[in-house]
């Protein structure tokens, strides 16, 4: 017989602890290092992907496209066709990024030679990793895989990555907590909109980068690449989110969500009280706006580890800070955006003390998703997202907003109930 009366205070204590760790997170971007040096398990023919675990036969089009592209990029296959054959024969070892302190946007593929951003959470002492953002348009994270995509990845591996690493070592790292706080006041929500944070980062990084890169034309190319990519900061925000949430894992009895992620087929969540177990449900289709030449008929279902930013209270949760993003599904009014953030306050346990929203009288972003509140209120997290073409090799076709599927939260709550002896 379970003492249910004692359970509520115990869960409250566990969640207070979770929230405290979450809010104390002190992420600093410290380095860029080749993946194989950070993740010893990342051998040749091992591919980390976005979302909960998935094998080749269930992967969506863009993820298959990216797998083929990365296999050619790594030199495991001569061309895309051979890569596809190898994949279907089981030549590659697939694992989620999340199992290796890493995250990746959209398809989120991480392989041995790619340089990874390193974010250190100085409050908890852990580190988390994410690839460098490739820019917009036809890119591997959206399933692009042609020569231009692979050439850009090679340039990031050979030039940009090492330069960023040197610059960060040189300047002693860039604290992200204050940078994100400023970005929020400038209209970013760190998922769909990173223009302010990308600019702020470039401003802080440029002097060190100039010292690190001897050749002026190389430097110019790097500055132009980062300066023309409004989403450059997204991958840093993601590594930051992972570094903040990982120490929140494995708190007995806690109902706080520690990860939300999608592989284009399944949406998965983890909760603190159930450690590394995934609770999955089919991903939903985003609603949004499309690039010229594309429509909703071309869209792939929701994908990517980038929902880690919603997990810490940014993205859709911080919509009130970035009203324009609300325009992907509605009129984009300030009131609409505020309404979305207000709904997220119904399912979260706290507010971030420094990440505040100017138009809400400097109220903090809602953070610490409690699965009990999600199930009780019927309100699921709102997620801002890019939209990939559902066929391999094409890339991004739009952007929009999507809901996390309720079934994940219900499954997690049932499982936790069983763990705690409530039938």
């Amino acid at each position, binding site marked *: 017989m379970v003492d249910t009366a004692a359970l509520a205070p115990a869960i409250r204590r566990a969640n207070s602890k979770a929230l405290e760790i979450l809010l104390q997170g002190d992420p600093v971007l410290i380095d860029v290092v080749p993946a194989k040096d950070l993740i010893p398990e990342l051998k040749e023919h091992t591919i980390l992907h976005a979302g909960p675990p998935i094998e080749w036969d269930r992967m969506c089009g863009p993820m298959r496209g990216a797998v083929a592209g990365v296999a050619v990029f790594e030199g495991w296959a001569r061309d895309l066709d051979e890569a596809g054959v190898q994949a279907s024969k089981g030549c590659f070892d697939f694992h989620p990024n999340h199992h290796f302190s890493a995250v990746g946007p959209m398809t989120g593929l991480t392989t041995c030679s790619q340089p990874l951003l390193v974010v250190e959470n100085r409050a908890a002492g852990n580190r988390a990793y994410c690839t460098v953002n490739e820019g917009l*348009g036809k890119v591997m994270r959206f399933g692009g895989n042609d020569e231009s995509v692979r050439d850009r990845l090679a340039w990031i591996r050979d030039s940009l990555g090492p330069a960023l690493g040197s610059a960060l070592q040189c300047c002693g790292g860039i604290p992200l907590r204050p940078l994100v706080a400023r970005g929020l006041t400038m209209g970013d929500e760190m998922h769909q909109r990173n223009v302010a944070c990308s600019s702020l980062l470039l401003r802080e990084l440029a002097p060190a980068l100039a010292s690190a890169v001897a050749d002026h034309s190389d430097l110019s190319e790097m500055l132009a690449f980062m300066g023309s990519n409004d989403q450059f900061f997204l991958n840093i925000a993601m590594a930051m989110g992972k570094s903040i949430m990982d120490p929140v894992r494995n708190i007995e009895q806690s109902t706080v969500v520690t990860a939300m992620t999608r592989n284009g087929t399944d949406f998965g969540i983890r909760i603190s009280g159930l450690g590394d177990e995934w609770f999955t449900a089919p991903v939903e289709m985003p609603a949004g*706006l499309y*690039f010229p030449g594309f429509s909703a008929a071309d869209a792939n279902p929701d994908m990517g580890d980038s929902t880690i930013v919603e997990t810490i209270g940014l993205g859709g949760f911080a919509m009130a800070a970035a009203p324009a993003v609300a325009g992907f599904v509605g009129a984009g009014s300030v009131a609409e955006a505020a309404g979305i953030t207000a709904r997220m306050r119904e399912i979260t346990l706290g507010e971030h003390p420094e990440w505040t929203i100017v138009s809400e009288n400097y109220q903090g972003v809602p953070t610490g998703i409690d699965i009990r509140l999600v199930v009780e209120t019927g309100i699921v997290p709102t997620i801002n997202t890019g939209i990939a073409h559902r066929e391999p090799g094409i890339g991004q076709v739009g952007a929009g907003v999507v809901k996390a599927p309720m079934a994940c939260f219900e499954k997690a709550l049932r499982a936790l109930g069983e763990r705690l002896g409530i039938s």
Partner: protein
Amino acid sequence: MSVTVNIVRAGVFLDSVVLMQISRELTAIQGVEDAALMMATPANWDILSDAGLLDEDTMAGPGDLLVAVRAQDQAIADSTLQRAAELMERPAQQNNTSQELRPLTLRSACRQLPDANLALISVPGDFAGAEARKALRAGLNVMIFSDNVSLAEEISLKREARDLGLIVMGPDCGTAIIDGVPLAFANVVPRGDIAIVGASGTGIQEVSCLIARAGEGISHAIGVGGRDLTEAVGAISTLTVLDWLERDVATHHIVLIAKPPAPSVVDQITDFIRSSSKSYTVCLVGSDDLALPDNAKLTTTLKDAAAAAVKNSKGLEALPVVQQAPAAGSYVRGLYSGGTLAAEAQVVFLSHRQPVLSNVPVPGAGLFTSERANHIMIDLGDDRFTRGRPHPMIDPAVRDEPICAALSDPDVGAVLLDVVIGFGAHPDPAGHLAGLLDRHGRSGSVVIASVTGTDEDPQVRAKQVSVLERAGVVVAPSNADAAELALAGLKIG
């Protein structure tokens, strides 16, 4: 042969989301194959090129806005470009005030209003208990408006409240006026020194309105739920309220309205009254079998309770003369939205030794099943009628069918109705009833009603009365008087 037209707006910047929204609108125009507005960055240039939207002669830089349209013919392309210009120059719509950010849960409501000390719960009965428990644990007193809450749940909630020093009003508590603030169904009555504690909503409304009509006022009116005085619940909420009122300096007299209580709780109530420094009127609708201390007076109707509570009851005396005798039938059919009003009518009939049946019979009345050749008083607000349907006080149409049936019944000589107004009630119940009677046409039976309310209520009692009178309804000054009039009419007939 389609045409592709590009226009460059040099140095113009618009947000990409705004541009995508305009693009979507343009693409929906008949005859437009594709359209896009984009800042002419290299990446966007590639996208436009892939979409076949670029004119090879177009020159633009990353700081320029490119408007591109591919259409079936030049005329459509031109009008689409014109539309694009209009959409870009359209002023922002002012819709920020329309959306109020209302809390969706008790938790966020408490955050918005940290000083709140009472939650009014009006969700389907199956969920009311869970919400009430949350409210209690958040330190809030609770008024449960919902009905269909189980007895076990009620007992558990009331015990928890008592342990926390809080009160649960209800379930099925339709009425409260706390320190002058009306909650749910309540009337605009003056402030005064009389407190009302009642099991039911309409009983409290009728007594408070009659007190107002006699020129006096109310300190508090608190509903405790119809089962509070049962042995199972043990009068937990009634005793809590009496204890609070004992210490309330604004209250000098207390009216307790109840069905005859369980013997086990009678002693607790009478003991409390005996030791109290205040005076009481105890209105037991349907029973005069209760020994009370000297500081309490027993009444059996709501009208008598109001008369006993006020210092001067002259305003409650007048009775109109019956204008119209029932022609055919010899039985009265009462169709009530208020349960206590239905009970009071039974008491009046029984006091004249007229047998009466009801779906909510008072002691001495019979349970109505199907026998129609009787005086019958039906409470249409009973749980059995309201599950999944609105209460007749909110939607008077719920009563239409039974009224028509009664008017067509040759056995029925008079139809008795209550019309309850005030906050929460239908905006014009008299108007609805008048319309129904007009459509149904005149019949042999007389329609007698009373209006529970005041002239200060949003519906204005005097107006409701005159609407009814114009429709040929005999309007009595109180519910008890209406029952008396129905009986008097039968005697004339």
